[in-house]
């Protein structure tokens, strides 16, 4: 059984710096936008005493580093070589490296850019997360959907832990049987928000392909805040 905690937030881009300072007590200088957004989610979901635990970060994005990419392309139009900082900021792989000093247990990172706006890849991320937890490769896994649009930053988070969380919102059960085709949450970027708002006690995640096992979310009745 896997405990789940969830968190989602939408911020104006200009508010991110204040959010980081409020949570971490200091700014993250030279950290990419995604690294700052990831730090906020990790800080909210992982208690201080667990930040050294072997942790994986599996994240996806529809927007990608859109603004940084445009900046990079503009620089290429001009002098022909980008500023190194702008180049680094346009590289999603850097986000995990910039996060690791804050989350010393972060030992694995995977980034999946998305090719459609209306669909996400939570089924892949959660499947990989379950494999890491049940295989003992990680003690906790952060799964996220992070977007950086011109007018808003969006972060949807799930923390999966094979060890009990203090106040889990849901538990994830892995059933060795195919999901029922007609039910289930759609695999969309806002899955954590949908889970948070769902009145049901049990939900499954719809998959884009036939699957031999079902990821079932079971609400924890004692969760404070549900």
């Amino acid at each position, binding site marked *: 059984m896997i405990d789940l905690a969830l968190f989602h937030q939408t911020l104006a881009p200009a508010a991110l710096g204040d959010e980081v300072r409020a949570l971490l007590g200091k700014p993250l200088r030279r950290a990419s936008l995604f690294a700052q957004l990831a730090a906020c989610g990790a800080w909210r979901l992982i208690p201080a005493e667990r930040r050294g635990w072997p942790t994986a970060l599996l994240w996806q994005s529809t927007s990608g580093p859109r603004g940084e990419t445009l900046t990079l392309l503009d620089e290429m139009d001009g002098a022909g070589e980008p500023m*190194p900082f702008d180049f680094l900021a346009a*590289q999603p792989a850097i986000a995990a490296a910039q996060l690791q000093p804050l989350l010393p247990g*972060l030992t694995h990172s995977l980034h999946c850019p998305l090719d459609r706006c209306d669909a996400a890849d939570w089924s892949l991320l959660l499947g990989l997360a379950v494999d890491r937890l049940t295989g003992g490769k990680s003690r906790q896994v952060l799964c996220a959907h992070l977007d950086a649009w011109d007018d808003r930053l969006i972060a949807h988070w799930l923390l999966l832990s094979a060890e009990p969380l203090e106040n889990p919102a849901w538990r994830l059960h892995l059933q060795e049987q195919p999901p029922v085709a007609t039910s289930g949450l759609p695999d969309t970027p806002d899955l954590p928000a949908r889970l948070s708002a769902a009145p049901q006690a049990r939900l499954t995640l719809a998959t884009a392909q036939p699957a031999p096992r079902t990821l079932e979310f079971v609400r924890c009745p004692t969760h404070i805040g549900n």
Partner: protein
Amino acid sequence: MTRAVYLAGGGLCCAAGSTPAAVAETLADSPGRPAAGALSLGERRFPYAALPGPLPLDADDWLKRAEAACRRAVAPLGELPGEVPLFFASSSFQIGHFEAQPAPRDLPPACASFVGRVAGWLGLNGVRHSFSNACISGQQAIQAAAAQIADGSIDDALVLGCELYNRSTAAGFAGMGLLSPTACRPFDRDRDGLVLGEAVAALQLSARPAGWRLAAVDSALDAFSPTGPTPDGSRIAALLATCLAEAVLLPADIDLIKLHAAGSPTNDPAEANALRTVFGNAMPPLCSLKGSLGHALGASGVAETVALLACLDAGFVPPTAGFVTPDPEISLQPAVDRSRRPVRRVLLNGIGFGGGLAAMIVERSA
């Protein structure tokens, strides 16, 4: 359910050729034939392992060239079922196409929309997954596909690594002083940086038995610096040990190591330290392919796997192009002569920009 995962076929289009067999033929004689081509950034010129033919002239040309390379890469796999899941790996996707557009640019809302276009070119209408984690993107795509095959979610997967011409990546690497102005010299005393390259590589993974089996694959994070791993190689060594344990193998069971060895002044010694930690004085033969193929970044994991297995299937271990003078700091020497030694198990190592590490072990299944 945990099923074995097999490497059922491969295709590769890169500087060294447009089929695995052609690449193997090139690699058989590659010492002294470093990757040709050049890429200009302002007044600076860098060697560049480009696909055969001219570099793209404009945005439309970039797409046509990409389509042709993708079609060539999957051609050796024959007719693929339309519903086969696509696991796409790249560090740059279609940024070369955007570069060629006039400003102001209108980027598509979904950053990996290029993958949908590639799937359309290849007649694939199944599930698509994309991976972008710099130089270990390909290994992570293989890892994810293998996990889904192992747990019974899918029976087959097409892993496609794609890294195509763009100036942004080259300029970024150049701006940080990571590119060699001359040649890629893996593990060599005089190495002075990376030589970038293009590649589109296809790897078919399957639950159906085939000639090579994926014994282990994993990745890790080492955030010592944005551009390189911990100098003592300890994080790399830990990952290699994890892979050996997953494959239930001992270091002595490995017959060949395909190095990452990009010719980096700092990363090559870290990799060597890791190998010494794991293998001690019983070091298996070493080879690096980047002197011949260039460093295809997000495609390199798939491209180098396909290229190496093509060589091994042709009966030889490829020599390492670009290695001439041993480095006392590294004190490991990749083979420079083509060898016909039998190879049953291979460890393939990867080190990524941004702290990514990856390792795979493949073994003959018969």
